[in-house]
């Protein structure tokens, strides 16, 4: 499988080239593809900042910032999840300003070069690093995570391991928690 970060960087580069050349339709298509690749993650990230309707507003501002970043910035994407997390904190500020009837602002949109300081796991870059993280898991935990990544239904995995679905969910929860703790300890992506 191609490295997602290489594919992302190429999409961003092509969007910017098209935008500069005035081929806005192509630029818009590349930006839309990049957003759709990470839309689910962006929805989750916006829910770390706010709840319900307000989270949807954060998501809207996050999307706008993301698109402006694709069109108008020069820096290359190194880590889309880290970038989205950083933008989400500014998007939350956008929502606060909007609610206070203050003018929209793009001061912060100008600089996403600072290292992302949220949870280090957001800095996972590629498959090799994920494999390394999975090394902290037991054989059974790893199998459960691998089956999940392969979209195998929980009922099938539970049957394969001869456990109850409740038990499966608990083991998966623990496994993810251990992966996150391991990432925090090892300062992944720093």
């Amino acid at each position, binding site marked *: 499988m191609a490295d*997602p970060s290489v594919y992302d960087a190429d999409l961003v580069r092509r969007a910017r080239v098209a*935008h500069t050349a005035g081929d806005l339709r192509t630029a818009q298509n590349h930006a839309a*593809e990049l957003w759709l*690749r990470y839309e689910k993650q962006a929805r989750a990230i916006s829910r770390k900042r706010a709840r319900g309707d307000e989270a949807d507003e954060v998501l809207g501002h996050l999307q706008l910032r993301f*698109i402006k970043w694709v069109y108008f910035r020069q820096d290359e994407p190194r880590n889309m999840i880290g970038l989205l997390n950083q933008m989400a904190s500014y998007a939350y500020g956008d929502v606060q300003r909007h609610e206070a009837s203050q003018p*929209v602002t793009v001061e912060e949109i100008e600089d996403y070069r600072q290292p992302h300081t949220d949870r280090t796991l957001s800095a996972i870059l590629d498959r090799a690093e994920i494999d390394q993280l999975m090394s902290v898991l037991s054989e059974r935990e790893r199998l459960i995570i691998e089956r999940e990544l392969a979209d195998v239904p929980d009922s099938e995995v539970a049957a394969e391991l001869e456990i109850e679905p409740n038990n499966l969910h608990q083991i998966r929860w623990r496994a993810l928690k251990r992966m996150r703790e391991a990432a925090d300890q090892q300062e992944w992506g720093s």
Partner: protein
Amino acid sequence: MDEREIQLGNLLAETLVAFGEGRSADVDRLLDSAGDDRLELVEMVELSLTLRGPASPSSEAIDALAMTPAFDARSWPEILTEARHAQGLKRPALVAALAQHLGIVSPDGEERVRERYHEIETGQLDPRRISSAVVDALGEIFGGLRAVLDATRLNPIGPLSPNVSFMRDGFDDVDGMVLMDMVLPAEPTADERRVDELFGV
């Protein structure tokens, strides 16, 4: 078994399914039901999605999204000029309609609307500062352009329009400019001040 871990594990499984099926209301309900552990549950959802990696959207989905206002890459001067030309509206007619929408009826107020609108269309006014009343009015005049104008407020306005190039070329009559500088500007009228406020000046 740790009952709380089972509950959270089940919530995570349900939330991921709801995420996958695009059921936002259910996602929010499930996350909130985690109570004090809500943030941890969101982080686990994020981790699961991160591990899965980026999606591979269909070309139909990409095409549809690319045409939505948020992805419009044009600047306000481009959008407004194109919209005006598409409707066959001359600038004076547009200004009259805009003044009417804003409730500006005096000649001095309308003249100020003309000046400020000219500044928007030629890239001299920052769209970010313009009031929502003006955005609403323009959106109505141009028939459903409100969402586009809102989504493109942060787009850079680019180089100044050739219509204002005289400002960069300068005047031949330097003495005249000095005299102009010495004339104190008249105090703005109430309507002029109101228009300036609406346009964020």
